[in-house]
């Protein structure tokens, strides 16, 4: 099969055009259609079928296994686009990647090829880790696989609160294979429902949820279900290791989905504040509202910087993903949750209206987005993962040690990405975090090309980062007793990482004398959140961001990439809203 050589950007553009063309009245991606499905708690089957026809599934399958997934930033950008239109659709469709990724990482090539074929032909794959009494703690799972007397395995127990457990034909299941458990006591199985004898499994009823109401959130119970030997993914005892590595990729994908929701929230709020009249002055021109819009725009740019660097890091800084993905998953959904909550205030009563009202979209978006910060490892679980890595992060920072080539590739948005190698994933980053360790170097470069006010902001970010690492070095804890204040340090670490990401991106794309607005917005926002004193003149940049936001054509989105000097005309990537 010779796939047409399309660059990632053109595929994304084609998807954006498709989504826009399906957004008209009565069509599957129209706000009304999606709101109605949500109200009826009905699966968005038609929207998913259009994504299938577009070929999105091929991007869940690596090229070497017969699909089109080469560049992770491409598939994540597409998921962001779908998320702008609807998170229920994005979570339901994107689930297949989560279901399959363990096989890409640890499966036999032949098993991966077969799975790739099933996926491109339309099969949905689910991933079942959670049980009724055990979520974040993977080592507590009770679902068990025993060796069957005549070969293969017998799987028993219940997985619950699982996306697509009922609709999927294939389910990746984490099961206990050693009675004592422990990190080598679990294995992964790819369960093919069509090969199970009747009565050996049953799907559990759909669970009503706060958001993404149409999604198939259910569960599956196994009753001595016989699995063939080749259902095992990787080696016996490799399950936890594989899943932890898989999460490095899927958590990064969650950040991309979150950014899509953030794009939509900002667009809806901007259009509302332009349209609604309070007295005679449009809301957007009132100083307080303008400042709030600017703050939200800066917050989203900062989150965007993390998302962009994280998805490029999958290729460029693969061994550091234990840090990068934890930052992305902890920071981006929390930042977007906060942006959405503050914009909801701006909409006043309109933010609370339900389906049927044009503004009902905002309330739905708020409900849908809340789940992103919970599944695939909550913000707290990810902060906990960061804290466990503090000693290494401090060590690398103090030694001034980072992967220079990897950092240049991860933060150079136009630099071609090296091929992804799953064997470079590591449970813990040996090199700390190059994005943060390389901050001083980037600040020195900024000093040479930026205005004095921008250079001053970057120096303050560097100071804050240095102080933070001293505090991180003091954190000591006994097993399972992470002190509460360490979570505050983790949040500050995320902010420093975000500011550093923005800085690196700017340094690599902005010629001397280039536009500084977006970067100043990001740094002002990060410093404010870090508790640094930011003065009034510095905050004015937020108003500039607000003005830019409300002056763009209705229905358009502008991501951070659009600020980073694309090869073509600057606005060529603007997508039309659905």
């Amino acid at each position, binding site marked *: 099969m010779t796939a047409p050589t399309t660059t990632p950007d053109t595929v994304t553009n084609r998807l954006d055009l498709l989504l826009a063309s399906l957004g008209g009245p009565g069509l599957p991606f129209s706000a009304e259609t999606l709101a109605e499905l949500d109200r009826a708690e009905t699966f968005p089957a038609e929207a998913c079928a259009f994504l299938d026809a577009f070929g999105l599934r091929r991007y869940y399958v690596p090229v070497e296994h017969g699909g089109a997934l080469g560049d992770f930033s491409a598939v994540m950008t597409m998921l962001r686009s779908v998320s702008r239109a609807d998170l229920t659709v994005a979570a339901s469709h994107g689930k297949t990647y989560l279901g399959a990724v363990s096989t890409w990482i640890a499966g036999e090539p032949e098993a991966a090829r077969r799975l790739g074929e099933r996926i491109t032909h339309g099969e949905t794959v689910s991933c079942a880790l959670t049980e009724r009494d055990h979520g974040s703690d993977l*080592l507590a799972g009770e679902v068990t696989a025993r060796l069957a007397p005549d070969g293969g395995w017998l799987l028993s127990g219940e997985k619950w609160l699982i996306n697509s457990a009922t609709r999927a034909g294939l389910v990746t299941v984490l099961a206990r294979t050693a009675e004592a458990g*422990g*990190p*080598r006591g679990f294995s992964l199985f790819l369960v093919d429902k069509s090969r199970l004898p009747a009565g050996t499994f049953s799907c559990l009823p759909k669970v009503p949820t706060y958001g993404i109401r149409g999604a198939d959130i259910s569960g599956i119970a196994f009753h001595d279900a016989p699995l063939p030997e080749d259902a095992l993914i990787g080696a016996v005892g490799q399950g*936890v*290791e594989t899943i932890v590595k898989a999460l490095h990729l899927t958590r990064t994908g969650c950040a991309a989905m979150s950014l899509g929701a953030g794009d939509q929230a900002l667009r809806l709020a901007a259009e509302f504040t332009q349209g609604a009249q309070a007295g005679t002055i449009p809301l957007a021109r009132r100083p307080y509202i303008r400042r709030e819009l600017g703050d939200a725009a800066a917050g989203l740019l900062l989150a965007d910087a993390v998302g962009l660097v994280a998805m490029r890091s999958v290729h460029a800084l693969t061994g550091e993903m234990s840090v990068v993905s934890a930052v992305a998953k902890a920071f981006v959904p929390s930042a977007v949750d906060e942006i959405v909550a503050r914009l909801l205030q701006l909409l006043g009563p309109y933010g609370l209206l339900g389906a049927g009202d044009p503004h009902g979209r905002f309330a739905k978006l708020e409900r849908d987005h809340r789940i992103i910060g919970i599944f695939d490892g909550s913000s707290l679980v990810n902060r906990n*993962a960061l804290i*466990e*890595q503090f*000693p*290494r992060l401090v*060590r690398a920072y103090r030694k001034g040690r980072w992967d220079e080539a990897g950092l240049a590739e991860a933060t150079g948005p136009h630099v071609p990405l090296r091929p992804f190698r799953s064997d470079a994933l*590591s*449970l*813990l980053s*040996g090199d700390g975090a190059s994005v943060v360790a390389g901050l001083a170097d980037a600040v020195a470069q900024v000093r040479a090309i930026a205005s004095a006010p921008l250079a001053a902001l970057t120096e303050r970010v560097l100071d804050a980062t240095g102080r933070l690492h001293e505090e991180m070095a003091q954190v000591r804890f*006994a*097993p*399972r007793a992470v002190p509460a204040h360490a979570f505050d340090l983790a949040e500050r670490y995320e902010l420093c990482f975000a500011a550093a990401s923005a800085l690196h991106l700017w340094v690599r794309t902005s010629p001397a004398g280039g536009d500084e607005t977006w970067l100043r917005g990001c740094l002002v926002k990060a410093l404010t959140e870090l508790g640094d004193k930011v003065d009034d003149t510095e905050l004015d940049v937020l108003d500039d961001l607000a003005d830019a936001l409300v002056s763009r054509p209705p229905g358009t989105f502008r991501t951070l990439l659009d600020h980073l000097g694309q090869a073509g005309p600057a606005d060529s990537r603007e997508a039309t809203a659905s």
Partner: protein
Amino acid sequence: MPLPDSGVETHTVDGLRAWLTDCVATHLDRPADAIDTSVRLSDYGLDSLYVLAVAAELEDHLDISLDPTLMWDNPTIDALSEALVAELAQTHV
């Protein structure tokens, strides 16, 4: 990254066992002589994630990069000391 001056010779199984015992004792806030080197670290409450923090200190001490799963595949101090000596021999060839 292996550095030439990491003092390979000093890392014998006994030396590493003693160092690991001290390290684990510090984490558990117990005297070193209360640690049995043939008991699984998880039995002392050092669960699979926490034990990775010990891996970080080990890397510092030995100045090498370790695959953290070494801690999972060698769950006692005795097993770990043996594995580390083998690992060090490989790294410094």
